[in-house]
């Protein structure tokens, strides 16, 4: 087993750079043609933000999987299982189970009551201005944290996959990725973005499936032998048991629960996921989208279980840790071990496509939120026509794209993995309580919504600032200072209940009552689909 572990020559990875770039270039060329074709019908705001509501449930479900399965899930979870064994697997379970919240409580009701953004639903029966502003701010915050994490992740991927280790070279690749993303979103709008996500999801899941079957074939399709081999290479039977990563101390155990809470309640409140539900014609198609995405995402995480233990058995944790890119290199190294340069090139290209697709989805969400919620409803007080709004959205795309490029270059090399967890925690604290209350609690008021959203957003960010991920630890962002007053790396266990509590408190002590007619309208619309936004007919 030891001889197999050393069979992966990390230095040889760099020789495949041209191949990686070539395969990625083909992906870009193909998707660009599709985006250009799709953009012919981009006329109205519904076309630009919601792809004319013309995608089918299965197409949208695939796009959701493409949006959700970021480089962090693919490379991160495979690497986490390869190194920390079972605890990496627990990560993926939270990411999957979370979709039941979206399926049961959010997707259809949201599709029936909203138009383009999350704020449409939250401000449906409450006061437009304060609620829309709060929802837009939390949308922009979640998108910003997520975007920065993806762009910074691109930097470490580049060093691993393209063999570019100098800062200038990496910055150049980040600029290229960012510029491509701006072009996709600017030209293709939601339609183009969706196609990029669909193609990427198919490539990613197919690639992972091939590798999974390959690994299983090596072990005679016997999961138990694969696990045995992983134990043998790691020389540690504990890789099969929980606790290797999170079981160290009492704090780390609570931290894992906090993370689990944020994952499970945050997914259904991620603005870029919510916005995808508007790209289908009906609530029934929104339901089908979630069903598709649950099957695809579930299947994919089952693959990562095999891939993670496969990398642990065939490549070995030591080789992975010492490779450029560290934990993230488990999946690429396994690909190289199995299929040589060609499979590595394919998997690397897919990883780049993944970053591109996720970043594009986040950018169009943030741009829509700014143009539709802040510009059209607040700044111009609803007087702007749809054309002006889309124009503003397109300009916002460029601004956000440039900010993402700059942020990515600055954050390159920083430990920003916590930003994804923070995005989930903010979504779960700032958005989910208000979504649930406004859909299901008749008495919910504007004051409750505003308190819950700002309280959730503020507490999540403040707790992160005073947590060990920012200061005081060996892996902290600022190593030299220590103002880590809050012991957990994940704020969810405090900020989520707090936001629910504030929503309840703000409502019960509010003397003002909301419009009962609007409440009735929202409830009837949400459950029956009366008056829901229809598909655009071209």
């Amino acid at each position, binding site marked *: 087993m030891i001889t197999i572990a050393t069979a992966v020559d990390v230095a040889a990875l760099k020789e495949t750079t041209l191949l990686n770039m070539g395969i990625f270039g083909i992906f870009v060329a193909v998707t660009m043609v599709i985006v250009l074709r799709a953009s012919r019908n981009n006329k*109205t705001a*519904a076309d630009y933000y919601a792809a004319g509501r013309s995608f089918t449930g299965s197409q949208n479900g695939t796009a959701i999987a493409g949006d959700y399965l970021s480089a962090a899930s693919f490379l991160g979870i495979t690497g986490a299982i390869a190194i920390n064994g*079972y605890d990496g*697997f*627990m990560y993926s*379970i*939270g990411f*999957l*189970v979370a*979709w*039941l*919240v979206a*399926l*049961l*409580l959010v997707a259809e009701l949201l599709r029936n009551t909203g138009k383009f953004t999350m704020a449409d639903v939250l401000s449906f029966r409450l006061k437009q201005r304060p609620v829309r502003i709060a929802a837009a701010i939390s949308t922009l915050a979640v998108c910003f944290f997520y975007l920065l994490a993806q762009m910074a992740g691109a930097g470490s991927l580049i060093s691993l996959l393209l063999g570019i280790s100098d800062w200038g070279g990496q910055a150049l690749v980040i600029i290229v990725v960012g510029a491509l993303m701006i072009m996709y979103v600017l030209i293709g709008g939601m339609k183009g973005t969706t196609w990029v996500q669909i193609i990427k999801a198919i490539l990613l899941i197919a690639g992972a499936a091939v590798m999974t079957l390959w690994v299983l074939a090596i072990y005679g399709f*016997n*999961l*138990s*032998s694969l*696990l*045995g081999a992983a*134990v043998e290479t790691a020389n540690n039977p504990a890789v*099969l*048991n*929980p*606790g290797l990563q*999170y*079981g160290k101390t009492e704090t780390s*155990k609570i931290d*894992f*629960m906090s993370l*689990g809470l944020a994952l*499970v309640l945050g997914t259904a409140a991620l603005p870029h996921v919510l916005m995808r539900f508007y790209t289908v*014609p009906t609530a*029934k198609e929104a*339901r089908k989208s*979630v*069903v598709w995405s*649950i*099957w695809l995402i*579930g299947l994919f*995480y*089952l693959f990562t279980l095999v891939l993670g233990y496969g990398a642990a058995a065939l490549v070995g944790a030591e080789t992975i840790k010492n490779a450029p890119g560290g934990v993230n290199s488990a999946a690429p190294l396994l690909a190289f071990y199995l299929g040589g340069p060609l499979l590595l090139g394919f998997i690397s290209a897919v990883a780049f496509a993944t970053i591109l697709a996720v970043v594009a989805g986040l950018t169009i969400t943030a741009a829509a939120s700014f143009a539709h919620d802040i510009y059209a409803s607040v700044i111009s007080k609803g007087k702007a026509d749809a054309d002006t709004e889309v124009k503003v959205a397109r300009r916002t795309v460029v601004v956000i794209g440039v900010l993402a490029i700059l942020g990515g270059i600055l954050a390159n090399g920083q430990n920003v993995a916590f930003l994804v967890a923070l995005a989930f925690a903010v979504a779960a604290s700032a958005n989910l309580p208000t979504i649930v209350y406004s859909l299901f609690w008749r008495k919910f008021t504007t004051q409750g919504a505003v308190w819950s959203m700002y309280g959730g957003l503020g507490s999540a960010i403040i707790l992160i600032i005073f947590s060990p991920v920012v200061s005081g630890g060996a892996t902290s962002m600022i190593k030299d200072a220590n103002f880590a007053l809050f012991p957990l790396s994940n704020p969810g266990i405090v900020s989520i209940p707090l936001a629910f509590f504030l929503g309840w408190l703000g409502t019960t002590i509010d003397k003002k009552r909301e419009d*009962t*007619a609007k409440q*009735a*309208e929202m*409830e*009837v*619309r949400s*459950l*029956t*689909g*009366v*008056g829901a*936004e*229809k*598909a*655009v*007919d071209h």
Partner: protein
Amino acid sequence: MGNDAHTPDAAASVDFEQVQSTAQFKELRKRHRSFVFPMAVAFLLWYFAYVLLADYAVDFMSTKVWGNINVGLILGLLQFVSTFAITGWYVHYSNKRLDPIAKEIRDEIEGHEFDKHGNRVGGATK
């Protein structure tokens, strides 16, 4: 009607409070909530029970059941199974118990059975 965003909103002149108070709508709401709420509570409890076991019952989770497959792996895979099962169950329930009644109410409203004053006016134009 149909796929045209520019048709006037059929729901614009509807008295929704009237619709909300009908027995039919109350039945739809009851059917929806009596499924999604208990199911949401159940899967959340099951997920957090699993997380607590992984956190605090490491020995139990590490018990080998068959070859190298231990209790933790089986419970983890059961989380996948339960997620798929609840998804299938909800789709079946929606198709059978929610969609037909929602469509009935929608057709009635879009055929303008209720006006602003809550009076039934004319039949649905189906």
